[in-house]
């Protein structure tokens, strides 16, 4: 279970709309004490060059910057979100192969420019599959 406010979910959707038809990506920052609670998102430039329509990538420099930022503001780097333009909000085999344990992954479907469903996923311990986890949507 990952807890996130409705406002932050809307920010992720807005990012997906802005980046359409390309994929957007960003980081989830917050606390993980028992359950994960997202308190802030950070947009990241998709470093995938010409393949941004079907791919996202966070450059190592951006990754290091985010770890540093999280440390400075006393939060944890909880995971990442990205959009699937004209594609369901389900992780692809490629998403799974590139996933890390511990991190939470949010996927936002954007259909014909309109953002829709967001789903949350975590890698299983044996790396074998992505397990869907519920999103605890909070009002504020």
């Amino acid at each position, binding site marked *: 279970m990952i807890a996130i406010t409705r406002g932050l979910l809307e920010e992720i959707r807005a990012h997906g709309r802005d980046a359409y038809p390309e994929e957007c990506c960003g980081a989830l920052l917050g606390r993980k004490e028992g359950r994960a609670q997202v308190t802030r998102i950070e947009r990241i430039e998709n470093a995938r060059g010409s393949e941004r329509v079907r791919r996202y990538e966070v450059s190592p420099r951006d990754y290091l910057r985010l770890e540093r930022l999280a440390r400075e503001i006393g939060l944890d780097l909880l995971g990442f979100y990205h959009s699937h333009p004209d594609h369901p909000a389900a992780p692809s085999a490629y998403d799974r192969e*590139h996933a890390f*344990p511990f991190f939470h992954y949010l996927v936002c479907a954007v259909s014909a420019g309109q953002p829709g469903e967001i789903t949350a996923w975590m890698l299983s311990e044996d790396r074998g599959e992505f397990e869907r986890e519920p999103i605890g949507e909070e009002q504020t």
Partner: protein
Amino acid sequence: MPHILLPTPLRPYADGAASVDVAATTVAAALTELVARHPQLRKHLYDDAGRVRSFVNLYKNDEDVRYLEKEGTPLADGDSLSIVPSIAGGALAAPPGEAATLSNEEIRRYSRHLIMPEVGVEGQKKLKTARVLAIGAGGLGSPLSVYLAAAGVGTIGLVDPDVVDDSNLQRQIIYGVSDIGRPKLQAAAERLRDINPNVDVVSYETRLSSENALEIFHGYDIVVDGTDNFPTRYLVNDACVLTGKPNVYASIFRFEGQASVFWAEKGPCYRCLYTEPPPPGLVPSCAEGGVLGILPGLLGVIQATETVKLILGNGAPLIGRLLLVDALSMRFRELKLRKNPDCVICGPNPTVTKLIDYEAFCGIPQEEARVAASASGIPEVTVRELKGMRDAREDFVLVDVREPHEVAICSFPESVKIPLATLPQNLNRLSTADEIVVHCKMGGRSAKAVQLLRGAGFRKVRNLAGGIDRWAQEIEPGMPRY
């Protein structure tokens, strides 16, 4: 002493530590020492073959060790070695150009391919990284997409705005009764993912247009034309020529089909074969003329075969050849096609250099305007008025101008049956003194009949608006519709 900085996701496997001091003097030794101390990290840092995973980046201070001496890069006192996960993902199963790998499950699934030297592991990887776009998820698109998914084509795009109708099930084998009323692509994507979860199905629930075609085509290697109308067929051809992609073509009608591979870089395009569309209405669509339900299966599988051959780069593709299939005689013939040096889009001096208005090119709006103009002068009766006339036993003659096989499905018992084509020879069966109402299935052919009769001196003749189909819809729900 050098130290290793661990990223957040790996800290739980190192007792929560963000930094681990090591005595090693090279990157390789530092990692070995780290894994020896925290064995749980092994599976996240190394793959099964003992290599550092491709998505694990190693930075010495601020520099990528790949640009230093890789894992042999020396580490000195005070140096930091950062393990930086490469965060990546995306909708596509395997990106173009990126070496695909086959999992054990995939190797079992594709074993019948892998043991053929013409496919083999290399060919199967080509299929996995291939991106094929199918225009239309109907009669041709159904068998095509099912076989491409089963064959392991990594990305299959589908373009279709329609919902499943019960008249589709006679030939569109990807759908079932439970799908009636659902968007086609929703049902098709579910079915394809069930056949092969390794496949990425990308849905474009929209009509292909001059506005969206180039953008959609951009992400694909091969386009397969499974459309049923001329404007889209010319649009697919032109967009393929402009983007340099092969167009795997087929079309079907009644018992006959055609197939070819149009690829302007290597041979003729569709416009080299048919420079201009036929006048609207001359070539009936499958909805008007019918089609043997099996025929799109035959042609769609030919398209799938050609697509897989193009991906594998093996065999002789249908480039420069038009395959003609006649299912009634079960004969396959072949015509040689040549590139037209004067082709307006793929010739050396093209005049079509961007997508145009294909509806206008095919004369559709002009034809609609003409039909509307000529129909405006035709007197009509509604199905309600006809019911009133029949119920009151008014004195009038009802004429059915449909074909005998249509009459066999449903008809009015009292009507005079004269197929439109034979009407001129049968005028003597009607009297100019009578009130006449003419009907067909939808009202189009009967409008022509009314015009013909009026030209022959009949004054009291009217057309049944919407034909017997609207009668079945509004007046007599028990009557079959076709």
